[in-house]
């Protein structure tokens, strides 16, 4: 275990801590500001990798399968996940289309890919050199990955369009919803997973 892994620094107040050994279901809190620093889930150390892989597998069909089908007086229109980006782009809102593309598609996909890469690297006895860089990137990308907000936006649109057109949900939307749920689960475990404890079979000796 890397000796640096046994230390936790609170990102909110900067307080340094020696990381306690966490039993499943326990979490470590900052002694100064009370922020959660680490959490050991009950599902085992590989749960985050499983969630991230499942999310990634679901993300691919969410891109390719019909997202929503709309019908208006005999005219049928099938929209993919990228339909919103296309609509904004065609209306001359290229900058906003890029933002929606990034926050709704690229960042969630990138986050899942980074999570799988980092978590897979951590399962190896000697993590590869770029492991820390990828971890840093994952934290940067997560801020902009908003699949759950996109889902809520689409739900609101459904109600708004209730009387204007007939709507039917496509498999792409189901896959996207499931992928965003697994992204949230994977991120929660990844960001709070106590590092270095996967390799530690017994609690660290308590100091006197």
């Amino acid at each position, binding site marked *: 275990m890397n000796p640096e892994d046994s230390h936790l620094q609170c990102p909110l*107040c900067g307080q340094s801590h020696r990381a306690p050994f966490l039993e499943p279901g*326990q979490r470590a809190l900052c002694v100064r*500001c009370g*922020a959660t620093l680490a959490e050991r889930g009950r599902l085992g150390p590989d749960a985050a990798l499983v969630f991230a892989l499942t999310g990634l597998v679901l993300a691919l069909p969410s891109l390719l399968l019909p997202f929503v089908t709309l019908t208006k007086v005999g005219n049928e229109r099938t929209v993919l996940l990228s339909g919103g980006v296309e609509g904004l782009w065609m209306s001359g809102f290229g900058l906003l289309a890029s933002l929606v593309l990034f926050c709704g598609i690229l960042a969630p996909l990138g986050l899942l890919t980074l999570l799988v890469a980092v978590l897979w690297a951590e399962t190896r006895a000697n993590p590869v050199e770029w492991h820390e860089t990828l971890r840093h990137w994952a934290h940067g990308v997560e801020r902009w990955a908003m699949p759950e*907000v996109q889902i809520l*936006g689409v739900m609101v649109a459904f109600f708004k369009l209730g009387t204007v057109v007939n709507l039917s949900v496509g498999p792409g939307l189901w896959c996207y919803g499931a992928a965003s749920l697994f992204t949230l689960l994977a991120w929660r475990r990844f960001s709070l997973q106590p590092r270095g404890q996967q390799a530690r079979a017994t609690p660290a000796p*308590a100091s006197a």
Partner: protein
Amino acid sequence: MKALRPPDRSSATHAAALAISAVIMLVPAYSLPVMHLGIAGQVASDTTILSGILQLWRDGLGGLAAIVFTASFLVPLLKLAGLGCLLVAARHRPGSHARLLTRIYGAVNFIGRWSMLDVFLVAFLSGAVRFGKLASVEPRPGILAFGAVVVLTMLATHRFDPRILWTEAPSAGSGPDDARAVQAAVPRPSAFLSPSS
């Protein structure tokens, strides 16, 4: 875990500049129309964020109106008010209020992304409702301004380093302390490990 950089005092200045830009962009975001809705047999209309919320309310979708009102109106204002508090406090040595201010920062950081709701809503509608003269939705400049507000407030929150709120506060110990290990769900007494010497 790698040691973090020391608290960045200049982060408050950068965050303030971004937050002020966001406040300026609020004016066109709330006053300009965000989308144009054209339906056969009805008068085509431009919708602002607030008129869209009112329309949902009039259509009997009160719950939905509340969600959109919260995400598109309350959240940006609360975020900017929270950021304002943090920025003022950072200049005046928050001391004993540091813990409360850190919680405010956590809340501002958490709610930030939900303002994107309206941007995703308009994007979806403009991509999906394209039936020519039968029904069509087109984005309008207000949504670009609103997107800018969301991005600027998120950048301001990310740029602000909350550790500067604690630079005047006493540390919990001279060396690294043991983090408190507590049960997440079961209400048991907290387990404290003794601080390292």
